[in-house]
């Protein structure tokens, strides 16, 4: 693929609002999980809630979109000057040339859960003010982001469960390469709701303690919520119009490039992964191949790592088949599993490891499972990180892997890309 540049990005999760809070927590090995106190969720579990979401006033002209998911989206868009960078891109390219591709699994379904608690006792009808299209429908997130910036380009929500926030990069890549758009706002937003809390509880997948990915005693997930966004654009082209490493000279060494996206399906089971991680392996192989990067050149893997016994086992087999002792960790011990936002949140985490050159510890894990055979990072540390892989897998056997790299690495060096 032609590399895309992540010209700006931001993340808000239970670790805090924006990149500084996220970076500090990851370096300092601090997590944001707390005992579940979500309204009406009487469950013995831990959650990663974002502080102050309900207090976030939705912009007045977007009042129809008011729901927890879009409040969280707005909270995310207003961190790190992200909105200003999007507005500058709109000024550069035009509102019709900027696309929106955002991932979510449950969108604003919490609003429908509330509405069902307040149904008319006689008729069973939902209350008159209920706005299905702007809250519950999965597209409501893309519509909100599009309306927030006054965009007129192509837009869609992607809802492939827990790979959604990664697959948005694939859709943006295709549409930019096709020439329909020049830039895209991509990301993922998922917010806490009873559907996912009780849903994962029904599958007996919720841990009763802060989740411990890849630990020998891992016993389930902790659900979190997050809003993560990136502005992606074509990497600069050379004077002859061809993309190439010469043209990348105009970029700073620490500019972040998306080099590869791999996508596959398990064809195995609706709610458990292929036991050998076959689909996961194909997604990683494709991402590497598209990037023109060898497995040995990956400096860090941000694992999907949900902390269920079977997910982590399947992922470790897939990783073990391709990589030899590449440092890796799941940051879900810190953030919880943010479902449809996870792919975007972890792409931003991967970008932070590249920009600030460190590998983050997988916190809560005290004894990495020796049977999984991975080089699991137990202490956050500075490291020469030039190229990283981020994994996102989901229900229905959907897999997506991303390869991201520092522009300096692509220019100076390795792999087929620099030749």
């Amino acid at each position, binding site marked *: 693929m032609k590399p895309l540049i992540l010209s700006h990005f931001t993340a808000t999760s239970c670790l805090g609002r924006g990149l500084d809070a996220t970076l500090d927590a990851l370096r300092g090995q601090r997590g944001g999980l707390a005992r579940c106190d979500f309204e009406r969720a009487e469950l013995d579990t831990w959650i990663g809630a974002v502080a102050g979401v309900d207090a976030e006033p939705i912009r007045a002209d977007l009042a129809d979109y008011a729901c927890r998911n879009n409040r969280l989206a707005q909270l995310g868009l207003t961190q790190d000057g992200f909105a200003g960078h999007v507005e500058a891109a709109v000024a550069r390219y035009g509102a019709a040339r900027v696309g929106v591709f955002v991932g979510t699994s449950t969108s604003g379904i919490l609003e429908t859960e509330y509405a069902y608690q307040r149904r008319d006792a006689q008729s069973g009808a939902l209350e008159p003010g209920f706005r299905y299209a702007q809250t519950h429908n*999965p597209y409501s997130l893309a519509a909100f982001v599009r309306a927030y910036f006054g965009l007129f380009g192509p837009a*869609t929500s992607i809802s492939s469960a827990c790979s959604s926030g990664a697959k948005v990069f694939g859709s943006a890549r295709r549409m930019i390469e096709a020439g329909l758009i020049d830039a895209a706002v991509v990301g993922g937003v998922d917010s806490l709701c009873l559907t996912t809390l009780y849903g994962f509880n029904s599958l007996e997948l919720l841990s009763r303690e802060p989740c411990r990915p890849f630990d020998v005693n891992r016993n389930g997930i902790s659900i979190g919520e997050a809003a993560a966004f990136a502005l992606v654009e074509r990497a600069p082209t050379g004077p002859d119009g061809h993309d190439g490493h010469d043209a990348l000279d105009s970029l700073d060494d620490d500019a972040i490039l998306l080099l590869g996206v791999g996508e596959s399906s398990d064809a195995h089971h609706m709610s458990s992964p292929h036991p050998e991680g076959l689909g996961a392996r194909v997604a990683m192989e494709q991402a590497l191949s598209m990037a023109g990067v060898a497995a040995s050149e990956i400096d860090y893997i941000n694992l999907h790592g949900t902390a269920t016994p079977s997910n982590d086992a399947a992922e470790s087999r897939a990783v073990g088949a391709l990589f030899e002792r590449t440092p890796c960790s799941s940051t879900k011990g810190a953030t919880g599993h943010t479902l449809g936002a996870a792919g975007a949140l972890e792409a931003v985490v991967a970008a932070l490891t590249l920009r600030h050159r460190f590998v983050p510890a997988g916190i809560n894990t005290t004894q990495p499972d020796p049977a999984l055979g991975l080089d699991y990072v137990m202490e956050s540390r500075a490291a020469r990180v030039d190229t990283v892989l981020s994994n996102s897998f989901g229900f229905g056997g959907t897999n997506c892997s991303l390869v991201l790299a520092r522009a300096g690495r692509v220019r100076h060096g390795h792999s087929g890309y620099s030749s």
Partner: protein
Amino acid sequence: MRLSAFIESVGVIGPGLTGWAHTADVLAARMPYASARTVLPPPAGLPSAERRRTGPVVRTALAVGHEAVAASGRDATTLAAVFAASGGDGQNCHAICETLAGDDRQLSPTRFHNSVHNAPAGYWSIAARARATSNVLCAHDGSFAAGLLESVCQVAVDGVPTLLIAYDTDYPEPLHAVRPIDDAFGVALVLAPQASAAALARLDVTLTDANATPLATPELEALRTNNPAARALPLLEALAARRPGRVVIDYLPETRVQIDVTMPERFGEPS
């Protein structure tokens, strides 16, 4: 880059519409349209345990997916797929919201895994042993057009054939009042980068602000505007009539998708 793809096959199911051959006869006015409740076949290809767990949305998607793949002669196991729908299983969503509004909020695992927007994609992957990429989109009433754009970009950029499956099914009350979809409709297209002997037409796709092409028959026009997947009907009508020309389908509020349809005898000529 020209956004083009060749349609190799079609699958359709809807109210009074059973399969592409029948639907093409209705759309080309070779047969009268008789509206009747959509009849969904049992989902083929699934193990019996999985089959029992499927609702109308999965059955709709699988019915049209299987029809289109069979007609194209392509190998489903390696065919990339794009799933496009405004919503999921309405009855299942209703049951979950009712349970969560009550005192005992325990859900069944099947209800939960059927609630994800990509449930049809997951079941398709199992039924067709499809291990290639699949994407799952939602653009409310413009979901079919969003899926078509994604598919055509995949064909044009990555040079691979793609299966597009778009579907939506009805909601029970009280959700029906806020999302008044009355019956199931599904459409599937196999799209390819090169013309083959099987190709029915070439599509050239662009964005436009022109209005969507309406259908002449009032009942079919009502179907088009009632179900997001049925927004595909103007394209299907052009294919059925073997009529080259331009159709416009609904996408986003101020943006629609224009499709120039070229029949096989004109493939050699510039669009």
